[in-house]
């Protein structure tokens, strides 16, 4: 596999401003120095609880919001997308697309489905005239909609179908990487499975890579090859999906896995439940040392003082924990 994207030390700090002069009195470190890479044809899952910075990270990658620092080396050209001007970025924009969470808010209600799916191609002048129409129909069919649907408006579709429209729009410019931000969390259970299957199918068909952002660990496990767990703007663990869930190496990952109720009553009765105390801390005033230490049941003095670096412990497994060598944590 070849590397499609390499993210180095991505940071996004939002200033907190106060007073009539809008003086900056501090920063919310939404994304606080994360590094990872995405291989061609791979799905990288990004999980974490609300406020951990997973969505901000995704938006920075598309330069929908400007990152504070960091580099994203993309494609065979090895171009650093973070440094490009808006003009220089244009040819790359079409190669990275996004799928949004809320299929109701992300489609313009005044545009027909054909216009919505065709818009990226019109803007980029990749197709015109009847070729454009053919391409729209082809895209709609590839996501399981019908050619008659081009003239209908988004309100006529159910949530799952709207998400399909959003996916067709993301595919319009034949991207190499798709950032999917909670693409199934607004959908009903039975429809969720359809969309997950569609995403896997399209990945094979068009050789796509995904960055799949979600809070639902079971969904992320299902679709991802590798998973990165975020907590308070930092990645605490990255590993391949199976290893992560069977033998987590970071206490936060362990607690997250333990908190997911399994749809199996007898297993659920037998499981040991780790109940994390308290809430995620305020990201403008993160704790000292390891950000997770106030809620961690294995925390020692070193955790209060020193921030652990993300380091590789075995092939493909990176963890940011002082005690990862000595802890034996339970998986699913």
């Amino acid at each position, binding site marked *: 596999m070849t590397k499609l994207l390499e993210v180095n030390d991505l940071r996004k700090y939002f200033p907190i401003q106060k007073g009539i002069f809008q003086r900056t009195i501090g920063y919310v470190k939404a994304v606080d120095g994360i590094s990872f890479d995405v291989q061609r044809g791979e799905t990288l899952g990004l999980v974490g609880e609300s406020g951990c910075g997973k969505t901000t990270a995704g938006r920075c990658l598309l330069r929908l919001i400007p990152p504070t620092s960091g580099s994203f080396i993309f494609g065979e050209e090895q171009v650093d997308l973070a440094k490009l001007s808006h003009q220089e970025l244009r040819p790359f924009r079409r190669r990275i697309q996004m799928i949004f969470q809320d299929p109701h808010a992300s489609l313009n209600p005044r545009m027909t489905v054909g216009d919505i799916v065709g818009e990226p191609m019109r803007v980029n002048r990749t197709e015109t005239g009847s070729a454009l129409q053919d391409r729209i129909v082809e895209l709609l069919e590839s996501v399981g909609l019908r050619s008659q649907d081009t003239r209908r408006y988004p309100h006529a579709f*159910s949530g799952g179908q709207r998400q399909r429209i959003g996916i067709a729009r993301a595919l319009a410019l034949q991207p190499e990487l798709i950032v999917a931000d909670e693409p199934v969390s607004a959908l009903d259970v*039975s429809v969720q499975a359809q969309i997950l299957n569609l995403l896997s199918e399209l990945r094979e068909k068009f050789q796509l890579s995904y960055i799949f952002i979600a809070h639902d660990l079971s969904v992320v*496990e*299902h679709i991802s090859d590798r998973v990165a767990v975020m907590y308070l703007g930092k990645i605490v663990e990255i590993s391949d999906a199976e290893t992560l*869930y069977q033998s987590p190496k970071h206490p936060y990952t362990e607690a997250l896995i333990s*908190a997911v*109720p399994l*749809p199996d*009553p007898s297993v659920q009765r037998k499981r040991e439940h780790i109940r*994390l105390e308290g809430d995620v801390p305020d990201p403008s005033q993160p704790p000292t040392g390891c950000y997770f230490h106030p809620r961690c049941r294995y925390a020692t003095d070193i955790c209060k003082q020193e921030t652990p670096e993300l380091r590789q412990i075995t092939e493909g497994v990176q963890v940011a924990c002082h005690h990862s060598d000595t802890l034996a944590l339970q998986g699913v």
Partner: protein
Amino acid sequence: MASAEKTSDQTPLLEISGLKTIFPTDDGIVNAVNDVSFSIARGQTVGVVGESGCGKSITGLSMLQLVPSPGRIEAGEILFYRNADDEPLDIAQVSPKSELMRQIRGNEIAIIFQEPMTSLNPVYTVGNQIAEAVMLHDQVDKKTARERAIEMIARVGIPAPAQRVDEYPHQLSGGMRQRIMIAMALCCSPTLLIADEPTTALDVTIQAQVLGLMQELQAEMGMAIMLITHDLGVIADLADEVVVMYSGRVVERGSVDDIFYNPLHPYTQGLLKSIPVLGRTPQSTLPSIPGTVPHPLALPDGCSFGPRCPERMPKCDEMPELVGINGKTENDGHAVRCWLHTDV
């Protein structure tokens, strides 16, 4: 979380039979809840599961006569055994605005909703809001009500209750707000708590805290819980009995083990198969249910699940009845609404 011992003693607390709640609209009548029957025993947890629009929330609201206008209860009984010895009271016959209904709400049956921010009043402190509920129901003075509020805040596991009591909802996190809602719901020791998607808006670690808290309080106070959710994991974690709803009807009902290990209705089977299970899913296609939930104004003839059902047969053009399995009646044990399991 299985440690919390259940105090269920099988005497019925609430029996719903043939409940029908309708919403007249310009385009026709929506049967949001259609011929729903199930019962809740004292101290028991009954999970009601289904996808959006299946009528699970409206069932909960019907039980408190809180169905939003223009909806109304059209038929059926909601028998509520206020005291084990007395004759039951049919809530379906009680007027929504009557004094009696007000006494039942909060005092005997309490409800918590999905979004704690919209259920709390932003301009009053949380202590005020809990104290208000206490004063309304228990006729105590302000000072005692405040003390009770602090006590309840402590009981739902919020640190520093004496300070938190004077804070406003926006100063609390989502998990804490939901704890406040639980405190408010439980301050009058109801015999039944209706929890409508209580943890859907919360993160998993906070969800685990709140679900654990509900189990602890149930063990302590002995109330029954009707847990409305779409999350089968939450159901497996908490419920004793499960009611599966689809398009306003109960399609299957049984103990939590019946539903998870011996599901009989093709919808229940499809639902269980279509969810990715942590640690168990191979990297392949999920078996999904084709199509979508039918529009409530354009329900198919016969079984509403028919058009999506892999086992569809000609008979499915007629609506099957909910029937008991293994020689039991439909009110007792495992019951299913499907022609595959209906002996003629």
